[in-house]
């Protein structure tokens, strides 16, 4: 029942945006519209490849034999010892690749109408395609140094895109802070990879996780990797670059940045569960297993993330900064679910918590992207940043209001949208670990609803202001892009069983059992 696709599809998924990025400046010399259509076609083709690969992996996986694609560069099959670069695609990688391709495809459809009056658009599209290639490479690779290289590609191109509007001072400052934090994180990741290489003489994730023992140097490498990747994912108190860079970038760049942030979260999962998977059940000090140790270290930071994110979001008057702080709170939810899954490893509710966290990744990516796109639409129509100046826009922009209501209800976790489904799983499983966690999560979810109701009132409700009397609806391409995400949100909300059984459960199974990951390289040896 699976479609026959060629062996080298993982390499194609990364190579097609790269080739598109090199051809874009040439094509944009001919015509502007041709370049837009070319970029949309390239990303559409890429999404088709990702969809085919995902269909194959998800339909062929059963709980005890998941289907993993490996593609080795430059040889026919894998011979031990592994010296070449390997792309190893299991269910978790292709899940994140689906998210990345949906987000970037919607972003380029949106930017047809949004970036129309800007100059320098050929550089924008080139950098965007490079960013896509970097993100997808980060998610599909099976080699630690390759991960570092793709991480740097992603951070360089996204920093240049954040500072796209160079005529305003704040965008350049936000771009500078973003590249500063990214580079420090990436250099510490390289340091940890160097430590692991010096010990075991291998860079491949499967070979490393087969040979790893929990020595002193390994502990140092684990701490460095987790903290550097969590900083890039936006865990409090290292989150402060996130509101700055999300709020001053153009709206389409922001949703690509959401994809890059989630790719760093994928890195945390890959390091903890696959790289150190064999040592997770060994006892560390005080005779508790390592997984409980790391889990109970992550959980307080995650709870502080949720509280700080929501509290700071309530005070903001800048539209996109508010949504950025809400995104910090949502990352806190994901880390809470991961921490619970680690601390309760082996029990049933630990597995459920991990499923809830993974389901929440895709839900939150879609919801927050819809909110950022609505913010971009309002900026396009009224050229206002601050919420204090807006009011009464619902009379002129009907469709944007409907999309904002859908995004509001979905982010705050209201039934029947998809936010409620994943948050329900997180509430119920963290309650069984410790009731205080679930109480904090529910309270902050209510405060998040309060925050967005404030935005809804001050931007859309209210009497008709005379200065906005000639504001029209935004162009059709932007409405179409927002409509795609809204349809996916409603679909995930009405049929959550479909998503959880067919997509999320294979991902959680593939993540926990790293023996399957190893057997794809070592071939059952």
């Amino acid at each position, binding site marked *: 029942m699976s479609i026959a696709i060629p062996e080298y599809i993982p390499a194609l998924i990364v190579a097609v945006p790269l080739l598109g990025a090199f051809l874009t400046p040439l094509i944009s010399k001919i015509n502007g519209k041709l370049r837009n259509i070319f970029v949309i076609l390239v990303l559409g083709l890429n999404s088709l490849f990702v969809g085919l690969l995902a269909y194959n992996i998800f339909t062929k996986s059963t709980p005890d034999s998941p289907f993993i694609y490996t593609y080795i560069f430059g040889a026919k099959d894998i011979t031990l010892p592994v010296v070449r670069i390997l792309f190893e695609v299991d269910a978790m990688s292709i899940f994140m690749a689906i998210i990345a391709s949906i987000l970037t495809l919607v972003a380029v459809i949106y930017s047809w109408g949004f970036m129309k009056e800007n100059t320098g658009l050929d550089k924008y599209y080139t950098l965007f395609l490079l960013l896509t290639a970097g993100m997808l490479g980060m998610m599909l690779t099976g080699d630690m140094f390759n991960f570092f*290289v793709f991480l740097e590609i992603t951070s*360089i191109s996204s920093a*240049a895109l954040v500072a796209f509007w160079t005529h305003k*001072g704040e965008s350049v*400052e936000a771009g500078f802070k973003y590249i500063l934090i990214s*580079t*420090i994180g990436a250099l510490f990741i390289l340091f940890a990879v160097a430590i692991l290489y*010096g010990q075991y003489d291998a860079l491949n994730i499967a070979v490393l996780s087969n040979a790893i023992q929990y020595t002193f140097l390994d502990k140092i490498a684990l701490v460095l990797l987790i903290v550097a990747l969590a900083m890039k994912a936006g865990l409090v108190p290292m989150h402060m670059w996130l509101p700055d860079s999300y709020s001053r970038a153009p709206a389409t760049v922001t949703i690509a940045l959401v994809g890059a942030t989630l790719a760093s979260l994928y890195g945390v999962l890959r390091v903890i569960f696959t790289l150190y998977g064999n040592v997770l059940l060994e006892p560390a000090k005080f005779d508790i297993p390592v997984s409980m140790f790391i889990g109970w270290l992550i959980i307080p930071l995650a709870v502080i993330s949720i509280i700080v994110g929501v509290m*700071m979001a309530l005070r903001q008057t800048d539209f996109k900064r508010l949504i950025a702080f809400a995104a910090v709170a949502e990352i806190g939810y994901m880390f809470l679910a991961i921490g619970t899954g680690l601390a309760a490893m082996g029990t049933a509710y630990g597995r459920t918590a991990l499923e809830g966290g993974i389901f929440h990744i895709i839900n939150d990516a879609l919801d927050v992207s819809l909110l950022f796109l609505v913010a971009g639409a309002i900026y396009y129509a009224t050229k206002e940043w601050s919420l204090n100046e807006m009011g009464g826009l619902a009379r002129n922009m009907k469709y944007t209001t409907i999309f904002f209501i859908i995004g509001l209800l979905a982010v705050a976790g209201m039934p029947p949208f998809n936010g409620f489904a994943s948050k329900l799983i997180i509430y119920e499983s963290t309650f069984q670990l410790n009731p205080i966690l679930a109480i904090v999560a529910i309270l902050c979810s209510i405060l998040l609803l309060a925050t967005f109701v404030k935005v809804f009132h001050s931007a859309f409700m209210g009497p008709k202001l005379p200065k906005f009397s000639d504001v029209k609806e935004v162009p059709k391409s932007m409405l179409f892009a927002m409509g795609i995400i809204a349809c996916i949100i409603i679909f995930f909300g009405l049929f959550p069983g479909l998503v959880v059984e067919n997509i999320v459960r294979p991902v959680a199974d593939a993540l926990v059992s790293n023996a399957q990951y190893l057997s794809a390289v070592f071939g059952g040896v």
Partner: protein
Amino acid sequence: MIIGITLIESGVNLFLITLGYRKGSVAPIYTSSPGGVMSLPIPQALTLTSIVIGVAVLALMLSLVIQIYRHYGTLDVRKVRRLKE
């Protein structure tokens, strides 16, 4: 700020190179080698990649700093904070 990042990057590159050193080794080139233990070539490749990435990041950061100076008029980190709280 930028000098600090350059220092970290040079430190990590140095660490990578010294990982491949074996006592009394020669350069890892096969043609007309004098024989004996060779130092590992893989960290040398990793370091080359890392130096190139560092150059690209440094170029981007310096161009952003030029733009910041044009907008803010100062390069003091404590004053370049229009985006706070």
